[in-house]
């Protein structure tokens, strides 16, 4: 007896010509194609012992498992995206059979065709904006401390050291708050500027410093949909934005398959 299997979905395309090169998917499975509603779907057959609802819920809690599956899913999508326009499927879209998939896809065919038209010939770039580390830029001097009064040293006019300290600390906190809110405004300005180059833009929640492994907070986590052959214009726009905002640190990732522009924001 064979184990019960499900159908794992990688990507959907309306491209019908040409043979798919051999691709390996999640859990070492062989990628094949299935057709439904005039669409071709890249799928592979996975064991429900590992990918069924109960097992899946447990396995997703396992970071090593999640990482391996996410990378395998991505590799198939990326390889396919080099060959024809694809709509990536969200991770863990699994059907009990090709027939079940065809039924669900049939009901969403209009949406899928429209999304494929939107992403065709386009790629996604990611831009993450952080506040630049403090030591990488000049510290703004609060006006109250700029006047040579020696306020920072606690020696002026009989003030106690404690009071001087409190004043200095308050000024530091105010400066930090102002610096953060101006960095946020600058990140927004960068986003508006980059959005003008893009067919579409999408914002993700900023990643926590703990997850991103950086010292300064992430202010913007954005994705931009761009013409596949227009990448250099966008990368120069990002470099220009970085030059215009030394108080920010920008990171560019991509090009990605158009994960963020399938019309399923949630």
């Amino acid at each position, binding site marked *: 007896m064979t184990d019960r299997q499900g159908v794992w979905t990688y990507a*959907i395309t309306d491209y019908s010509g040409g043979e798919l090169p051999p691709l390996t998917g999640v859990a070492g499975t062989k990628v094949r194609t299935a057709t439904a509603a005039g669409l071709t779907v890249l799928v592979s057959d996975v064991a429900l012992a590992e990918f069924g609802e109960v097992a899946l819920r447990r396995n997703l809690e396992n970071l090593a498992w*999640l990482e391996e599956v996410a*990378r395998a899913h991505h590799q198939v999508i990326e390889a396919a995206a080099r060959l024809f326009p694809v709509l990536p499927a969200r991770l863990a*879209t699994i059907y009990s059979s090709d027939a*079940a998939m065809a039924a669900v896809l049939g009901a969403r065919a209009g949406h*899928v065709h429209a999304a494929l038209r939107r992403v065709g010939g386009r790629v996604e770039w990611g831009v993450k904006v952080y506040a630049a580390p403090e030591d990488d830029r000049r510290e703004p001097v609060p006006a109250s401390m700029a006047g040579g009064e020696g306020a920072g040293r606690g020696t002026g006019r009989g003030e106690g050291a404690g009071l001087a300290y409190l004043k200095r600390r308050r000024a530091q906190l105010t400066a930090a708050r102002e610096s953060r809110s101006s960095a946020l405004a600058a990140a927004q300005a960068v986003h508006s500027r980059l959005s003008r180059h893009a067919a579409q833009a999408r914002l993700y929640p900023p*990643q926590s410093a703990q997850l991103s492994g950086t010292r300064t907070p992430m202010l913007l986590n954005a994705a931009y949909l761009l013409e596949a052959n227009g990448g250099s214009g966008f990368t120069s726009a990002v*470099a220009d934005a970085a030059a215009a905002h030394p108080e920010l640190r920008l*990171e560019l990732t991509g090009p990605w398959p158009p994960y963020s522009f399938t019309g399923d924001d*949630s």
Partner: protein
Amino acid sequence: MDHAPAERISLVDLLDRVLAGGVVVTGDITLSVADVDLVTISLRALLASVSALAGPAAPTGGADDSAHQVPARRG
């Protein structure tokens, strides 16, 4: 522009996309409407592993390798 090999892509960036992006054509086995749960689950897993690592190294196994630093241009 060169594309970083898939192994080098930051897991956090990848999870942003595969969990919150991608077309939703809900599978009949998938955690159906549990998209938000998926993200929550994965982040919890990440956080747990980050604190378990308890090291200064990038928590995602090369988080910075695929991210191109954008140098400020001179002039």
